Each structure stands twice: as C-alpha cells, then as structure tokens.
C-alpha cells in the first residue's frame, strides 16, 4: 500500500519535472531540473531494489551531468532558441505514435517480478546458487558485474574513459585567457 503510494508520487514527480523541462525557457533552470529528475529517478530505483543502478543514476545524472552541462552552458548561450519551422502537431503525432508502438510492445513482456520470465530462467538461477562459492562476493549483482561479465565491464569503462577524454579535448585542457578579469584580482 505505502510502497504503491510512494511509487505513484515519485513517478508523478518524474512526469511533472519532464513537462516543466520541456516548457521552461532558461537553460540554467533546465539543468537544475534535470538534476532533480535524476535524483527522483534514483529514489525510484531504490524503491525498485536496484540500489546499484540508483547509485549510478545519482552519480552520473545528478553529479557529473550537472557539472558537464554547466560547463557547456558557460561556453554557449543561456537561453533556448526556437528553431522549429512547423507547428507542434507533427512532433506531437510522431511522439504519440512512437509511444503507442512502445506501449503495444510491452504487451508481450512478462509481468513485473514474474518468476517465470525468460530473464529469470536463463542464467540467473546459476548465479544465485553458485556465485557465493565461485566468487565469494556477498552482493550477487557485484559478482555478476565484476566477475562473470568482467570483460564487458572493462569495455564499458574503456568507453566511458574515452568519452571523458573526448569531452576534455573539446573543452580544452589549457587554461584560457581569463574572460572575467575581476575574478583574477586578489
């Protein structure tokens, strides 16, 4: 009962924040609201028992993304520009159609938490039964990520590192000439 209520409230927060992000003009407010969105979805992931996903969401969404987006905003403009040449009807139709197709696609999926779902039948029982002996890590998700899918995780880390290097190369390593000299004064 209380869990359902918490789910509904958190999902309402997410929906309201997304609508506000679309509607608002100031990009700084958009970045702040994106941080709020990330924190709310992290709370939702905790409610769904996916603590590691929630942690990643909070670190990437609320921490690093905010910093990177603010750095981008410092290099570019502050206000959103309208570039749409047509009315809102065509995008609305495309989005509605895509959403309808996605909802239609979920009808074939097993129910949430269904123990007979294919995802819970394939290798998950072996992880649950053997990972405490084979790996010895108390948290099963950690043992899957760090041992069974170790090469996969290594590839992900490589991709993220490359992306970070790319972003730093775009922003520039060198110290720019001070744009605001009043801050350089002691």
């Amino acid at each position, binding site marked *: 009962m209380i869990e359902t209520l918490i789910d509904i409230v958190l999902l309402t927060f997410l929906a309201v924040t997304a609508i*506000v992000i679309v509607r608002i003009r100031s990009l700084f407010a958009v*970045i*702040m609201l994106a941080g709020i969105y990330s924190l709310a979805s992290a*709370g939702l992931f905790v409610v769904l028992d996916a603590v590691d996903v929630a942690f990643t969401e909070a670190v990437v969404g609320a921490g690093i993304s905010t910093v990177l987006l603010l*750095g981008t905003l410092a290099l570019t403009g502050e206000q959103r520009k309208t570039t749409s040449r047509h009315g809102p009807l065509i995008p609305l139709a495309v989005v509605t159609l895509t959403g309808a197709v996605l909802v239609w696609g979920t009808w074939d999926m097993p129910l949430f938490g269904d123990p007979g779902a294919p995802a819970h039948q394939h290798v998950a029982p072996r992880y649950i039964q053997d990972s405490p002996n084979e790996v010895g890590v108390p948290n099963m998700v950690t043992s899957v990520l760090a041992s069974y899918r170790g090469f996969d995780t290594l590839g992900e880390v490589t991709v993220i590192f490359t992306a970070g290097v790319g972003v730093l190369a775009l922003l520039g390593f060198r110290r720019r000439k001070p744009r605001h000299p009043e801050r350089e004064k002691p």
Partner: protein
Amino acid sequence: MILAGVSLGILVVMGLALLSAYLGPTVYDRILAVNMFGTKTVLFIAAYGFLTGRPDFLDIALSYALINFIGVIAALRYVERVYSVEKPGGGADDDTA
C-alpha cells in the same frame, strides 16, 4: 506506521522543492531547490530503508549527499563566473588582461 508517515512527509516536502525549482524567479531559488531536493532524497532513502526493514542503503544515501554537494558547488561556480559579468563595470570586454 511512523516511518510511513515520515516517508510521506518527505515526499510532500520533495514536491514543495520541485515547485520551488519550477517557480523560483531567481537562479538562487533554483539552486536552493535542487540542494533541498537532494537532501530530501537522502532522507527519503534512509526512511524507506528502515520502512522496508533493510537499513543497508544508509551509506549509499550518505554518498548522495556528497554528489549533491558537488553539483551545487559546480552550479555556484558557474553563477559566480557568468552572472558576475552582467553587473555594470564587470569588465567583460576587458578580454586582453
């Protein structure tokens, strides 16, 4: 029961922070709202952990506070850099210094 009430109360305060982030006329209102929302997320995760009988998530909730802190520091640095230029006599075109 008390924990359920606490969770719901925290959710209400999160909604108020969301409202403040939406309505807040100045930049500082929004930064304060984000900071408050992050703090309330930490509190909510803590309360929810005790509500479901597994307070193991408490340390993770604490690390959220650190992440939130980093975000707020970045936002304030940005505000300090950009918004101080718009003051009269800020010396924005004195770019060769």
